[in-house]
């Protein structure tokens, strides 16, 4: 390696390179933020959806399930569960009944706790899951099974 390769040069490249790429990242972030309204279904974020997101969060659903592929891998993907369980024809009813039924009495099967959600909370959660299922995710997941 050349003797001219000094430490101070390496340091300058480190600082210059990092700042350079961070600025590029910021630029892409700005563009993404501008492009999002066309894709993120934010026009459908109602008060119900907002409350539903909180129900989702305060019961730590992400600790077992994935949402748009992120979370734990112990239980099914829920980003598209509204559509998987019938969409506007019965999706809401299925999800609510399912949550109320837990835990299922099947020995050995993975267990979902009973969260004692109120009817209002269940409706909010369904609204949130419906909203999530309508985000443009570039056709992910590959099929309805998630």
């Amino acid at each position, binding site marked *: 390696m050349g003797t001219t390769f000094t*430490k101070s040069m390496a340091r300058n*490249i480190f600082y210059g390179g990092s700042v350079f*790429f961070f600025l590029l990242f910021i630029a892409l972030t700005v563009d993404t933020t501008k492009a999002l309204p066309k894709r993120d279904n934010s026009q459908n974020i109602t008060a119900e959806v907002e409350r539903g997101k909180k129900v989702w969060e305060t019961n730590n659903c992400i600790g077992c399930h994935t949402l748009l592929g992120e979370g*734990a891998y112990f*239980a099914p993907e829920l980003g598209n569960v509204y559509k998987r369980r019938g969409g506007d024809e019965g999706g809401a009813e299925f999800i609510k009944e399912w949550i109320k039924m837990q835990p299922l009495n099947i020995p050995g099967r993975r267990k979902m706790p009973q*969260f004692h959600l109120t009817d209002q909370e269940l409706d909010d959660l369904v609204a949130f899951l419906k909203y999530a299922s309508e985000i443009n*995710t570039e056709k992910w997941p590959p099929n309805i099974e998630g």
Partner: protein
Amino acid sequence: MQYKSQAVAKPYFIAAIGLFVGQILFGLIMGLQYVMGDFLFPAIPFNIARMVHTNLLIVWLLFGFMGAAYYLIPEETENELYSPKLAIITFWIFLIAGALTIVGYLLVPYARLAEFTGNNILATMGREFLEQPLVTKIGIVIVALSFLFNICMTLLKGRKTSISLVLVLGLLGLAVFFLFSFYNPSNLVLDKYYWWWVVHLWVEGVWELILGAILAFVLIKVTGVDREVIEKWLYVIVTMTLITGIIGTGHHYYWIGTPEYWQWWGSVFSALEPIPFFMMTIFAFNMVNRRRREHPNKAAVLWALGTGVLAFLGAGVWGFLHTLAPVNYYTHGTQMTASHGHLAFYGAYVCVVITMISYAMPILRGRAANSNTAQVVEMWSFWLMSVSIVFITLFLTAAGIVQVWLQRYSDTPMAFMAVQDKAAIFYWMREGAGVIFLIGLVTYIASFFIKGETKAAA
């Protein structure tokens, strides 16, 4: 030990190892729940166990980083720590806050915990890895600030080496990016977008600076190679890390509602992400081969080399396996991700923290290195843990392939739970490997209690 105040590192290291044991125990519980759904239900549901498992990992690594910084900074800056007392106070605050949080997770239903701890004032809970109650998050910020204050004051009045600068930059970045955990918009896409600013920019960004600095420090000590050479390498490695890793965040923006172009940005830059890890492997071996002294602490050298190899395998190779958008389309959110996560965290961060502990702990206990017997036991623990984590990774990869094949790629896709049954054999084998990992960890702890002939402190 050259400086008295380095001694504050000791409780940090002990706490780190203690929490590490907790993490592994909860990992074993979860592993069993994968195949025996009734195990410990409803006492410890899976989501709670997982939260404890991942949060303990983060907290013990933070303890490890802090301990490493408290040990390393006085020696690098050539003066005593600004305030050893503050370091000890911070230690207890962090430990108690961490313990209370874990107890809260285990004893109080999560929704109730959220209510008690002010989640209604500012909702930040219930997002993967950032499940901590608001008060704990604020506590983490306070601890981080007092820690950084202590480190920076020490740095300001002493010698400023490249290693300490890179370390402090990494720690600063850690604190700054954690602030994004307080941002939780109701727009799920934005929420996820900035959630990665904490998670990705930590583990594939600033944490790698910390990793590089710690590794460089230990390598200088155990090989005696010229500081100029090692620090030059350090700069080149962290440069490559950041120029690939920052835009590499894009590999998380494929399917969460962000624009399509991230598939290109993410694929291109994360395809380059293995480079810094490969350089780190070359670096570690190169320095050890060019060593100018035979350091009596062979175990620390082994851990350092292990960091290089396993970080490259876990973060580099296993990351690359599923990082390209067309591949990730099928693997996203499967056990493939879990397999990569396990080996990457172990290889990069667990190994580097133990490297530091392995090097520093004997010195903190008044000797240059442990006795030969103790070192042999420690090396056994390295091999037990490393080989078993590699097998955990392989089994999870197999489970991931089963998932992709039956649930995603097939013309007649099967339902999630049906596919999980098909993969059960791999989950059982993973649990077996996990038990061996625990044996390795117990062996590691045992090595601290083995006496024998030791050399005097350097």
